[in-house]
């Protein structure tokens, strides 16, 4: 009990804003960005669902999708979502090294995901399934590519944040940023689950 009170005291020392925590408003603002991103993806999903049968004589989803790579991408992204959560836990314990360490693991998993996705796209293009082959493939590359672009931007952002954490340590500002990027990363994992279900699983079933 005494220990927990002391622990709490230490926390509020550098974090004593009570209900008017400035990070709270930033996190809420970021939520609204994520919701606007949900709307962006809803349009791309709707386009893909409507056009998925329009292969114009080109390859169909069933012929094209290589499930082993997709399954690997799924578990890599899911694990990176978990490790970004572990980064937040390390931040809450004020352990800078562990925080940066988990962010590095998260970024490496994200990079592995992007690598697999790029090689998947390159293989498709080499098989003659390009963006302009059919309406199905235009919708496919736009939808999956937009998600991949989000992950790539998240990677650049995460690297920048790690540099800032290395220089300034865990401060009120960097705490808000880590919280926001972990929300972003979980969000990208959720979008991927729906990509896996609607694009890949429904494509090969």
């Amino acid at each position: 009990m005494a220990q927990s009170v002391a622990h709490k005291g230490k926390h509020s020392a550098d974090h004593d804003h009570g209900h008017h925590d400035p990070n709270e408003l930033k996190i809420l603002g970021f939520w609204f960005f994520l919701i606007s991103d949900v709307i962006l993806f809803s349009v791309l999903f709707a386009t893909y669902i409507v056009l998925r049968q329009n292969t114009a004589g080109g390859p169909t989803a069933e012929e094209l999708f290589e499930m082993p790579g997709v399954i690997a991408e799924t578990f890599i992204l899911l694990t990176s979502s978990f490790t970004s959560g572990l980064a937040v836990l390390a931040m809450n314990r004020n352990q800078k090294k562990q925080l940066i360490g988990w962010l590095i693991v998260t970024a490496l998993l994200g990079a592995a995901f992007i690598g697999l996705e790029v090689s998947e796209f390159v293989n498709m293009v080499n098989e003659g399934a390009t963006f302009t082959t059919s309406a199905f493939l235009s919708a496919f590359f736009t939808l999956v590519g937009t998600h991949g672009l989000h992950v790539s931007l998240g990677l650049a952002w995460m690297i920048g944040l790690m540099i800032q954490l290395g220089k300034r340590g865990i401060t009120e500002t960097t705490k808000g940023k880590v919280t926001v990027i972990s929300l972003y990363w979980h969000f990208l994992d959720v979008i991927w689950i729906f990509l896996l279900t609607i694009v890949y699983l429904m494509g090969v079933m």
Partner: protein
Amino acid sequence: MAQHKTAETGSHGHDSHEGHGSLKSYVTGFVLSIVLTIIPLVIVLNDLLNRTATFVVIFVAAVLQLVVQLFFFMHIRETEKPRWNVMGLVLGIIILITVVGGSIWIMEYNKIGY
């Protein structure tokens, strides 16, 4: 555990924001997500069910995984009231269902157009 109690009974609000989940909640969420990913993969890749049943199961698994991530990873319950984030999310989902559902409905019943 004791710390958690103090946070709840003591100065309300501040620590619940600071707390943002425990290792236990992240591990639970991770395990549930893995299970909810493996079930649809096994069903689809082994052709275990007919088309309609497969569709229902994989879609329910995806929605459940969304819920798991919202609660265990994104801590949607742990914000202070009023929960603007939940209200915004509900609005986003209404727009999503309108756009996706509306597109499917119109394009399925108007095949002559394209």
